[in-house]
């Protein structure tokens, strides 16, 4: 369709799921609570509508002159000339890519969760929150004003809180939800501070104007760096980067489709999207760009190490997500928007698939603990196949999507950040190792689970409604990488040269770089292969026994499995001892004893003095007479003395 998408329909993209949220929560939940499946259909049809509209938007943006659609906007908060905040939409290439990712993945996962959430009492509530989440995620991606983006940013955080704590009767889930919201809120603190700084210095929060100011250089120096760091702090919070990563592994308490959608593909990528959206600000301040790259690289390897030792399949995937997000940040830091977003694009598909695979495995065996799985290869062929494709893709094996985007990141990081390059290479090896550790533990060997579990006697393949979305995602996990083989994808996002299809196919293998013996692609392939081999050796072929290795590296193993004691540091030391027991308890004591004490003290002293003075009233008149006379004498004396 060459006709450009009309403006109203663009608004509809994020209004459709919002509508479905309203319909489900206001009409279905109170009145049609006995027919659960209805909410599933409404939510899926809404997201399907948005998906179609996003494709239409993509085509119209592709044909638009500067990949830009102008959409009229409404003013949201105008206090005459002092402050004007408009609610408008940016429809550029970045938005188009993100729209596709969010709508497609959300569609797949909502279909999948029809099977997964079968028979859950609060089915309506689940789909209500899902559509609200998708609506706010789409809103976040399309909006053109930084403050309105912050609005959607917090709404997305709220939905993640609601969905993590979906099974609120489980204390662990409630705790994880609270932790997630508060940790992301610490990040939002930085984001809001940056917004305030930008408004006070530039007077506007319109993203396009901010870009032009940054490019023109009027917005520069420490102000720009501070604002960029503030925005990055928000991204760190939301994308669970190094200091604020503790909430994501706990967020696995939520239902698996939620983890797939929110904590793998979309919400956590919002941080990367934010940095990409405000890239001109980052570009013009080296300090900010450097921090992005460093934090990204550091988180990549840091999370990967923890991923090696986890026994819960979802925890491993969670750490792998944090590690991959670190890659994206590194890509943004060193390479630019195209490279970072390309990895986000691919990662969304195969990571969602991995989570759905984990979901269907747990659906069959009733547990997430890999030690009780094994030998599911024969019983669950489809899940095994899709899971294997996704693992190959994430490990970065040649024809699959993961290879292309990871390779680009390594390529761009080699010339300006050599240290991070070597860290990234180590992470490639680790990623391959922990992914295939999961594959071999769950699908290889014999079934170690005890059949007495509540689940049916033997683990069985998941129903087709769950398998079909996984297959679609598997196809995407393979194909999404090829979009950039000819350099078309990064060219679409601005920058990067294009080259022929086949020539691009083998570009990495032929093109040698200074300082490297053989072309980069070969090195990363070899490292990935080594990782897979090691995993095979330990967990499938049993050449090396896992126990001896853990004893050999006991201190390291302890360090990784205790998650570098960050949880203890944050929750126990900072939150409980320093703040709650220390500072706040002191303040409460001061409040209840200090101020209240003073007030009650005054009351008590007045009563006490009253009791003392009362003793003077002996009831004997003559005593009073004497006082009178003494009074008279004193007065006369005073008169005479004072002359």
């Amino acid at each position: 369709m060459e006709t450009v998408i009309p403006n109203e329909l663009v608004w509809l993209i994020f209004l459709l799921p919002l509508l479905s949220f309203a319909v489900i929560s206001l009409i279905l939940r109170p009145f049609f609570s006995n027919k659960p499946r209805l909410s599933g259909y409404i939510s899926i049809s809404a997201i399907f509508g948005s998906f179609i509209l996003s494709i239409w938007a993509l085509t119209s943006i592709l044909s638009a002159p500067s990949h830009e659609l102008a959409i009229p906007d409404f003013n949201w908060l105008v206090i005459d000339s002092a402050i004007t905040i408009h609610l408008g939409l940016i429809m550029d290439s970045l938005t188009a890519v993100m729209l596709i990712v969010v709508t497609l993945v959300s569609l797949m996962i909502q279909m999948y969760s029809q099977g997964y959430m079968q028979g859950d009492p609060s089915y309506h509530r689940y789909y209500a929150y899902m559509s609200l989440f998708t609506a706010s995620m789409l809103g976040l991606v399309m909006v053109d004003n930084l403050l309105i983006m912050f609005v959607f940013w917090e709404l997305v955080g709220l939905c993640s809180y609601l969905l993590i704590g979906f099974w609120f009767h489980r204390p662990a889930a409630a705790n994880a939800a609270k932790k997630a919201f508060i940790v992301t809120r610490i990040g939002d603190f930085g984001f809001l501070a940056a917004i305030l700084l930008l408004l006070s210095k530039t007077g506007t929060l319109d993203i396009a104007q901010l870009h032009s100011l940054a490019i023109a250089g009027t917005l520069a120096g420490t102000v720009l760096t501070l604002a960029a760091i503030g925005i990055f702090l928000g991204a760190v919070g939301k994308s669970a980067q190094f200091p604020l990563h503790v909430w994501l592994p706990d967020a696995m308490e939520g239902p698996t489709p939620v983890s797939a959608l929110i904590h793998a593909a979309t919400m956590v990528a919002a941080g990367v999207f934010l940095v990409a959206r405000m890239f001109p600000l980052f570009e013009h301040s080296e300090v900010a760009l450097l921090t992005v790259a460093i934090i990204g690289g550091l988180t990549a390897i840091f999370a990967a190490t923890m991923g090696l030792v986890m026994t819960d399949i979802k925890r491993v995937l969670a750490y792998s997500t944090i590690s991959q997000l670190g890659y994206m940040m590194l890509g943004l830091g060193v390479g630019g928007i195209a490279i970072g977003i390309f990895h986000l694009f691919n990662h969304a598909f195969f990571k969602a698939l991995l989570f759905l695979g984990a979901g269907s495995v747990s659906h069959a065996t009733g547990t997430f603990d890999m030690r009780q799985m094994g030998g599911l290869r024969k019983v669950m062929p489809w899940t095994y196949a899709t899971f294997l494709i996704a693992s190959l893709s994430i490990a970065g094996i040649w024809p699959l999507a993961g290879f292309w985007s990871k390779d680009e990141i390594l390529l761009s990081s080699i010339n300006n950040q050599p240290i991070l390059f070597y860290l990234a290479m180590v992470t490639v090896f680790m990623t391959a190792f922990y992914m295939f550790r999961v594959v071999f533990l769950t699908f290889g060997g014999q079934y170690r689970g005890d059949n007495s579990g509540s689940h049916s006697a033997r683990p069985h393949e998941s129903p087709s409604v769950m398998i079909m979305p996984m297959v679609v995602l598997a196809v995407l996990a393979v194909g999404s990488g090829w979009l950039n083989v000819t350099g078309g994808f990064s060219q679409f996002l601005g920058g990067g040269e294009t080259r022929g299809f086949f020539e691009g196919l083998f570009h990495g293998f032929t093109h040698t770089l200074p300082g490297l013996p053989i072309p980069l692609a070969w090195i990363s392939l070899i490292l990935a292969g080594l990782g897979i081999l090691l995993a095979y050796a330990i967990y499938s072929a049993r050449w090396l026994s896992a126990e001896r290795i853990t004893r050999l590296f006991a201190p390291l193993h302890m360090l990784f499995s205790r998650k570098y004691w960050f949880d203890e540091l944050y929750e126990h030391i900072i939150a409980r001892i320093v703040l709650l027991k220390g500072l706040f308890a002191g303040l409460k004591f001061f409040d209840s004893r200090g101020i209240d004490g003073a007030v009650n003290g005054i009351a008590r002293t007045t009563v006490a003095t009253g009791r003392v003075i009362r003793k003077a009233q002996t009831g004997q008149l003559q005593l009073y007479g004497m006082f009178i006379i003494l009074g008279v004498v004193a007065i006369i004396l005073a008169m005479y003395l004072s002359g």
Partner: protein
Amino acid sequence: MSLGLEHYLVLSAALFSIGLYGALTKRSAVVILMSIELMLNATNIALVAFSRYIVPVLLTGQVFTIFSIVVAAAEATVGLAIIMAIYRSRETIDTTKIDLMKW
């Protein structure tokens, strides 16, 4: 030295102080009453002295004294009535024992 106003005033002050002492220290209500009468007489002396020395013609002091005597009489009667009532109800008029109005 001839009789001056001060003589009378000193005399009345003396009488007043003695009456005062009596009123404030005696435990027997009747003696208190008598001391009060003394104090009243002291004031009468002063009044008449003022009238004699300062306004000899107008005699205002003496008029005042007359009324003071009237009041003194009234006071004596009521005082004694109260004493009789207290005596009848409490068998004693010892002021140290009549101290209900206390903390």
